[in-house]
């Protein structure tokens, strides 16, 4: 097999464009919204209110128990039949955010529980409300613990955004598909797409190390 380098170079533009205008903003927006949702779900799950806790439990169970592709299709292709039509981009962001919300909620819950009870008590004795203790004492410590697993979630998300190509979002993989269909060079274009995903994930993994180092500055080594 000879490599058609001309095609590699000429397709690099549209594919990178797909990454920069599709994959990356989609992943960032979904991750940001998903984390907020995850924090809310985690706090509900930890709440003493049994109704909140039950809602959170069911939510996590449904999100983790159903394929992301199915979630995406329900929102984009399913909802219109009950009169709710959402365009591709918002559909993708909603689906990915809901998905991250379910997975990251368990990470955040575990991270909060990993902070020793004595930290809550110290917050209490200096006069803090539970909310103040949570925000100023517990979450900063939970953040450190949750960086590695949340990085996993984020890296998975970056790759999962390729599913958005199936609901017509122009992102990295859809660009590759289009060039491939046009040139019939499937192996080449899909490998090229794979390499670009890999490079993006390498950069993210590097970012994870930097973040871990920063957050580790107050821990004994």
């Amino acid at each position, binding site marked *: 097999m000879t490599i058609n380098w001309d095609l590699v170079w000429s397709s690099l533009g549209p594919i990178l464009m797909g990454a920069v205008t599709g994959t990356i903003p989609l992943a960032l927006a979904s991750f940001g919204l998903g984390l907020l949702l995850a924090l809310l779900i985690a706090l509900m799950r930890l709440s003493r209110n049994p109704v909140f806790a039950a809602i959170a439990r069911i939510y996590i169970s449904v999100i983790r128990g159903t394929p992301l592709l199915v979630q995406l299709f329900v929102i984009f292709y399913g909802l219109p039949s009950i009169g709710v039509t959402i365009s591709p981009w918002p559909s993708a962001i909603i689906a990915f955010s809901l998905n991250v919300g379910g997975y990251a909620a368990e990470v955040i819950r575990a991270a909060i529980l990993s902070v*020793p009870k*004595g*930290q809550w*008590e*110290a917050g*209490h*004795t*200096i*006069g*803090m*409300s539970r909310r*103040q203790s949570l925000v*100023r*004492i517990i979450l*900063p*410590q939970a953040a*450190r613990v949750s960086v590695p697993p949340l990085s996993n979630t984020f890296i998975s998300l970056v790759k999962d955004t390729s599913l958005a190509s199936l609901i017509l979002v122009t992102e990295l993989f859809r660009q590759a598909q289009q060039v491939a269909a046009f040139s019939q060079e499937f192996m080449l274009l899909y490998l090229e797409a794979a390499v670009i995903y890999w490079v993006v994930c390498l950069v993210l993994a590097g970012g994870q190390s930097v973040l871990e180092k920063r957050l580790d*500055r*107050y*821990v*004994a080594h």
Partner: protein
Amino acid sequence: MSPTESTLPDDSALLAVRELRKAFGSHEVLKSVDIDVRRGEVVALIGPSGSGKTTVLRCLNGLEIPDDGVVDFVGQLAVDFSAPVSKKQLASLRDRSAMVFQHYNLFPHKTVLENIIEGPVQVQKRPKAEAIAAARELLARVGLEGKEKSYPFELSGGQQQRVGIVRALALRPQLLLFDEPTSALDPELVGDVLTVIKELADEGWTMVVVTHELAFARQVADEVIFMDGGVVVERGHPDTVLRDPREERTRQFVDRLLNPF
């Protein structure tokens, strides 16, 4: 630094605890405990593990909610636990005392200085510059000048516990609560921490100290309370309780601490 100023005479009653009860499930940890503390007084709570002495301390600071009984900061606030107690009342009770923990419980993600000013600045809304100045003064007092920017993990256990004490002092509470403050320390570091506590006692701070250090209790405490099985077995002047106790249970406990084998 001095304890909260008051127009009341120095030895007036500060705290009166009446018929304090607490159970965890079916296990009764406190079965009607009464304690009185006067201003400037040091009360040492001693007793075997499981006797309920730490639970008493935690109830005073609102870390546990008693099932029944009254905690009365005389003339200021009396909280009656026989009926449901509001969050506001609990917070008001909690704010009158500050706890020094057995395992320090410093905030590991904050520097020494940040640990100390967190309460004054974030909770009490005091000016930051003033809180920092007060914190530095207190740190110097306990021999930790220059450690402001250290993180807790960079300090020895004894240093961490002194930071824990300063964090409590910075809140300017009326009552200091010490929960076995030296039990987690290496033996050679115990002395430094006890010295600091003794100095605070000499300055007139009011404190309740749960401790196994009988020599410290005899030297510093005005009253020693011996608890066992969730009740106060004996109380009185340290020389009496620790040297010539009336109760057999007290005698056995003291003997065991003085002659472990």
